[in-house]
């Protein structure tokens, strides 16, 4: 049976409503007043873009919302979307000292959303590009978080920027690939508008390598930033993968973002194959769009799931089921031409020794299969665009981490195509770092990064904010657990 949309419009809307609704002014004031205004706040160090968190929260507490938004957006131009999609539990909020004091951190993400929503809705421009231009032109390939982070920073440094985006809208995964209940596409599009107002030109629907050659861009522009993200979803390489109800997770999520919610087809019994955060996004949205049952099918154990614990909990709350240590062998159709189930096998052994157990095969009925086993690296495309570009064997662009510069002096890179796939906030940070690298390359001078005052003169202490060397609380805790074991 072909799958169909399941819900009436109002039910679909209600199910997909904001998971963390906007603060009321009163809520924001109470929350802002919980911040201790640390001298050298660990939240700043945990933020890959190095947002001066206590500073913006203090401004919210005094009613200076434009000032608060300026602090956020000058460090992270996509502050509004990051406020919604960042895994704050393992970043700023995970590092918050109030967590240590009260068992509950300051809700930094929601406060950030409060301030940036104000800025996006206000006619007053928070960020400004200088009137005097450098005369230098930079092409940004890819209008996703990395490209936007780079473009906005370059514009504020006085350079002329053109963003080439193959989709009809810029924003990348922020526009097309975030769980809807975390952020509807409008937020990302408003951010794009804000970046346009800095003088950045967007050429959407233009694919570099097809509509315009990279060589042409190299001729026309003084520098190029490559922020093309990752490619299509990786394939299962099992029989039946071509059936119409087998969908890549990002394709499914894109449908959620480009069609009315009540028209997105979803199965009665949906299998989501994979154990990462995208698998969670897919399973929760399938459930919220009316799937009677939605099941995560993961070939390893729960402990090995790469999805954040709080995301796993969200899926559980949404009523999703988990099947651990099972691997798909075949998508079944029983000759109907449509998905009827999955042939699965139990697995054993961790890490590289994982293998399916002979004789453990079984069949589970499903009418939709969503694959979420990671996206493909862009090695081939990158080689085609820039034949001399040095790549990591896995297909990522090799670049200087601090400046984003590749082996081609004019070409800089950042975001998923360089880091292999991380958070939105990492992409923005890398875009901004590359912008500074490009600025140094074009103008011959560096822009200083933020520095945590306490780091001056302290031997062995990390210098700077999270922009220079972000900490990740989850990783720290793992290290700590290892060290103390």
């Amino acid at each position, binding site marked *: 049976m072909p799958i169909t949309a399941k819900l009436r419009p109002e039910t679909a809307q209600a199910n997909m409503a904001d998971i963390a609704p906007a603060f009321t002014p009163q809520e924001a*004031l*109470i929350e802002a*007043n919980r911040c*201790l*205004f*640390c*001298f*050298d*706040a*660990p939240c700043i*160090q*945990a933020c890959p873009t190095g947002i001066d968190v206590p500073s913006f929260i203090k401004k919210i*507490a005094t009613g200076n919302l434009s000032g608060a938004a300026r602090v956020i957006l000058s460090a992270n131009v996509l502050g509004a979307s990051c406020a919604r999609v960042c895994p704050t539990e393992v970043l700023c909020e*995970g*590092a*918050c*000292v*109030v*967590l*240590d*004091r009260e068992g509950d*951190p300051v809700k930094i993400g929601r406060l950030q959303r409060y301030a940036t929503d104000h800025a996006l809705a206000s006619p007053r421009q928070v960020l400004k590009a200088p009137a005097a231009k450098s005369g230098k032109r930079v092409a940004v390939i890819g209008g996703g978080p990395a490209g936007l982070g780079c473009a906005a920073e370059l514009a504020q440094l006085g350079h002329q920027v053109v963003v080439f985006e193959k989709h009809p809208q810029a924003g990348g995964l922020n526009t097309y690939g975030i769980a809807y209940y975390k952020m509807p596409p409008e937020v990302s599009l408003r951010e794009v508008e804000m970046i346009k107002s800095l003088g950045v030109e967007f050429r959407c629907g233009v694919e570099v390598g097809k509509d315009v050659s990279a060589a042409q861009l190299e001729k026309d522009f003084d520098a190029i930033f490559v922020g093309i993200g990752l490619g299509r979803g990786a394939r299962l390489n099992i029989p039946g993968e071509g059936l119409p109800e087998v969908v890549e997770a990002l394709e499914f999520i894109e449908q959620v973002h480009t069609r009315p919610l009540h028209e997105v087809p979803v199965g009665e019994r949906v299998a989501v194959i994979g154990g990462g955060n995208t698998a969670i996004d897919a399973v929760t949205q399938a459930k919220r769009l009316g799937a009677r049952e939605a099941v995560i099918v993961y070939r390893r154990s729960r402990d090995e799931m790469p999805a954040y614990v709080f995301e796993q909990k969200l899926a559980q709350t949404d009523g999703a089921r988990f099947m651990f240590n099972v691997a798909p062998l075949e998508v079944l159709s029983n000759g109907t031409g449509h998905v009827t189930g999955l042939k699965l096998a139990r697995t054993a052994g961790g890490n590289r020794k994982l293998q399916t157990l002979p004789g453990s095969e079984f069949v589970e009925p499903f009418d939709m299969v969503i694959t979420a086993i990671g996206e493909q690296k862009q090695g081939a495309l990158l080689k085609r665009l820039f034949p001399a570009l040095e790549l990591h064997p896995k297909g990522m662009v090799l670049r200087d981490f601090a400046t984003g510069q590749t082996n081609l002096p004019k070409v800089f890179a950042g975001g998923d195509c360089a880091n292999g796939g991380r958070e939105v906030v990492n992409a923005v940070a890398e875009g901004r770092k590359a912008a500074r690298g490009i600025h140094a390359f074009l103008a011959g001078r560096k822009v200083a990064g933020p520095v945590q005052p*306490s*780091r001056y003169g*302290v*031997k*062995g*202490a*990390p210098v700077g904010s999270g922009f220079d060397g972000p*900490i990740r*609380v989850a990783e*720290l*805790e793992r*290290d*700590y657990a290892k060290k103390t074991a």
Partner: protein
Amino acid sequence: MADLSINLGGIKSPNPFWVASGPPSNTAYQAHRAFEAGWGGIVWKTIGDPIVNTSSRYSGLSVGTVRMAGFNNIELTSDRSPETNFREITEVKERWPQRAIIASLMVDTRERWHEFVKRSADAGADGIELNFGCPHGMCERGMGSAVGQRPEVTERIVGWVMEAATIPVIVKLTPNITDIVYAARAARKGGANAISLINTINSITQVNLDNLVPEPAVAGLSTHGGYCGPAVKPIALHMVQSCAADPEVGLPVSGIGGIANWRDAAEFIALGATGVQVCTAIMHYGFRIVEDMIDGLSEYLDAKGFKSVMELVGKAIPTVQKWEALDLNYKRVARINYDMCIGCNLCYIACEDGAHQSIDLVPPNGHGLGPGRVPGKPIPQVREDDCVGCNLCAIVCPVDGCISMVSIDRGLQPMSWRAYQDKLGRGEVKPIPAHP
């Protein structure tokens, strides 16, 4: 259980908690509710010629999310007739004979004072409080703080009152004066039985930044109002202690000013108040707050082995001395408990920018993992030799008990500044070198 009853200058009350003269003590209805809740006494809203109030009257000072940390008002004395007020006092006293009812009065001439004092006693009041403190409106008419700010006038009017008084008289003092002790001595000289303090402090709480008019705003204008609430407690404690410790005053004290719970009350009592009066906290939460005031004070007295609240009165007075009596050789230093430290480093910056630069940020060396104490994040370390023991770090530290101020024995004999001056004069000590 400790005996909570008090006797303040001849006025008896089953507990030391009185409703102060003000909006909560305006009517018989409120008095009944207060007594039902458990208040030991009530000082009636000041009776005199009925006044006319403005519509907008109060303004609150919020600190962060704490509302009414401070509070002010421009309300005047009772806007009800003396007949109504005295009749209601009689009615309330009949129903609550064991509770104290004090008539607060404010009139002008000697004859009028005689008349109102008599009417108070006839109504059945247990005592009289003379409102010499109201800092707004009435002072412009030669009453309230206009009286309290001039000791000779205070003494003269108290004298008039005592000519007619058959029940105890309390004089309520204004803090809007250079030294409140002079006003207290005047009350004593005039023959009063007790004093109560503090009345409200002249204030402007805030300016509305949209229209640039302070609050409370009355049709685009504002005026100086009387300030009260938790923020004034330290000022009130200082004044209560000063009056209670002064041998020339020698009168029982009814403590007023920012009292909101039994702890506040116990502090006032320890510094010399025989009982306390509460207004702002009632305006914030209602009469029910007295329940924990009674319960908490009772538990405290029992835990500390006091048999009655009267035993606590004035217990802390001797520990307040002139600065010159304090030991210059005493030293305390800050000690940080790293197991409790959450890594905000507010102690560091407070000391560095706001005090004496005696805390260093140093590599953590093993300290500091877990939320807020990320690896490599510097930790604060006190240089005890340089620490002057000022307490600032312990005050700003958001974790109770994380920074403790520890007494250090330097093997020196105690030496006050007074003793130091004497010894210097006799050549027994060398001058203490100036701080570098």
